[in-house]
């Protein structure tokens, strides 16, 4: 996947900017703000709220993993993915720090180890799992670099998903408002957001390149549709899911 045609992306961004600003109000300061706020919320609804309630990623993962695989889910939340994998995976294990979510995993009947992913994963041996999953967690970690390396030490394949902060609406929101984007999908204010490491799809690809990590496959959620990665998705994908491995 190579979409790093930055100049083309800038052209497209410029045209989006023209399209989404009411021409009658272009000369009028307030109109720009109003238009963006409305537009942001409108499109957001199509992709559903961010988080564990709408997990298109689960469907992709369940379909993708080979039967009998060993799957470790880091930051497994209430164990929804692991429950979906019952009967397909050979070994399931969740890791979750939050007590209530751990209890929810027990209620679902999935094994869960209460631990802070950020505090290290020394409990796990090298290559002890086929897949290590990090769903919608990367951007909330204190040490994402270390955790990514740990997951690729423990697992043959890493499955990572995160909200793409390179989405064009987020970019325009910041440009227009001069404030951190707040929307249905990213409802938090700067002072209470769990998302402490904002990244874009392009950022992640650069990280993989710098760390000798190969991206085998990428799926995106864009305009309400889940589809394979396509060129220009750093601008259009609101969420991404990548299958990565050591080179």
């Amino acid at each position, binding site marked *: 996947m190579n979409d790093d045609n930055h100049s083309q992306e800038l052209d497209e961004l410029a045209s989006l900017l023209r399209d989404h600003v009411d021409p009658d109000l272009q000369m009028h300061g307030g109109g720009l703000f109003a238009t963006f706020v409305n537009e942001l919320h409108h499109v957001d609804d199509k992709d559903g709220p961010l988080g564990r309630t709408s997990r298109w990623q689960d469907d992709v993962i369940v379909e993708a993993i080979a039967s009998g695989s*060993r799957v470790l889910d880091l930051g497994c939340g209430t164990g929804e993915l692991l429950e979906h994998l019952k009967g397909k995976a050979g*070994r*399931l*294990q969740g890791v979750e720090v939050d*007590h209530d979510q*751990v*209890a929810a*995993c*027990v*209620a*679902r*009947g*999935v*094994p*869960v*180890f*209460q*631990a802070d992913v950020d505090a290290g994963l020394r*409990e*796990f*041996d090298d290559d*002890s799992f086929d897949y290590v999953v990090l769903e919608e967690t990367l951007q909330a970690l204190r040490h994402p670099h270390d955790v990514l390396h740990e997951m690729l030490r423990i697992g043959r394949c890493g499955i990572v998903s995160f909200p793409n902060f390179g989405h064009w609406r987020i970019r325009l929101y910041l440009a227009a408002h001069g404030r951190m984007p707040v929307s249905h999908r990213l409802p938090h204010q700067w002072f209470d957001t769990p998302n402490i490491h904002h990244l874009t799809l392009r950022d992640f690809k650069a990280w993989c390149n710098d760390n000798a990590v190969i991206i085998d496959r990428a799926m995106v959620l864009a305009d309400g549709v889940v589809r394979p990665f396509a060129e220009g998705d750093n601008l259009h994908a609101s969420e991404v899911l990548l299958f990565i491995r050591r080179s």
Partner: protein
Amino acid sequence: MNDRDPRYDAPDSPRSVGWVEAQRVVLASGDNPFVLESGTSLAEVEVEYETYGSLNADASNAILVCHALSGDAHVAGWDARAEQDERPWRSRKPGWWDAMVGPGKFIDTDCYFVVCSNVLGSCYGTTAPASLDPDTGKPYGLRFPVVTVEDWVQLQHRLITHLGIERLHTVIGGSLGGQQALEWALAFPNLVDRCVVLAASPRLSAQGLGFNAVGRHGIMNDPAFVEGDYYDGEPPAIGLAAARMLAHITYLSEQGMDNKFGRRLRSSDKPAFGFGIEFEVESYLDYQGRSFAERFDANSYLYITRAMDYYDAAARWGDGDLGAACRRIKAATMVVSFSTDWLYTPDQCRELGATLLRVGAPVTYLNLPSPYGHDAFLVEIDMLGPLVRDFLASDQGAES
């Protein structure tokens, strides 16, 4: 007269197993002695146990509950024979885990057949130092052989076999009971589907060994101890009370003791400048020590704490390597620690969970926040109960 504590479910409550009577069974006799881990054997072993609920047709709903140091087979309900058997404290309180075990409770006796037996060497009906040695016709005293957690589990295996149970749906226990649960999963990997280890680790720390040593020191140096042959006279109650007072501190936490007693004086605002019982915490421990000495046999205390000292799952099953030991386990295991437990600390419990992870066993580990220290497994039923209930209902990793 009814002096029942109203905080508990009464015998006629639909949530109580009601009036219960312990049963006894001879599990070793002349032609079938019980050989102990130490190599010695007991020609006669009788076991006191209780059961609640009904064993289903294919005997697949049996849960073995393992009790801790000072516990007994009386897990739930009200002892119908409390007065006859001279266990008057049982008239005031139901079994030690009555909040957990009963109809509709977290370990639901409408669904499960729950079994608990008093461990070998304890003083609640199973053969013990106070029992008569068939060779001499006198109480064993210190001539009773040293018993181990492994011995207890082997004897429990005889009991469940006697009850027509081949495999256990779950084995569960806290503290020394948790070590028995772990030993079950290690010694009989093919017979245990689920193992729940609460506030227990694969071995006691040096600090824990130290506490036990001080407790025994107090008992064995009580003038009334007379080398354990005190059954004709006064028991070493002062030594046993001191042992219990010390041990009781290890079951609480600094935070819990501060919350409960602080530095409050017992009866006045001013110190009396003497050595009587001044602080509330002193009064509490004094009461705990004395009441324990009335209901527990000092020799049993020696034997049980020794079993606690000796238990080392890694040494027994892995040549010192806990991972090698844990590879034996086939049960789905849940390990629960409590944040302020300083007898079996969260780190020690977590190590068991982590080792099970490392060897590829399905494991659930949680550290529950509680100010109640080691005792939390008996106290924090609101938090622990749903976890236990849900874990029992799950099919994770269970051998089918």
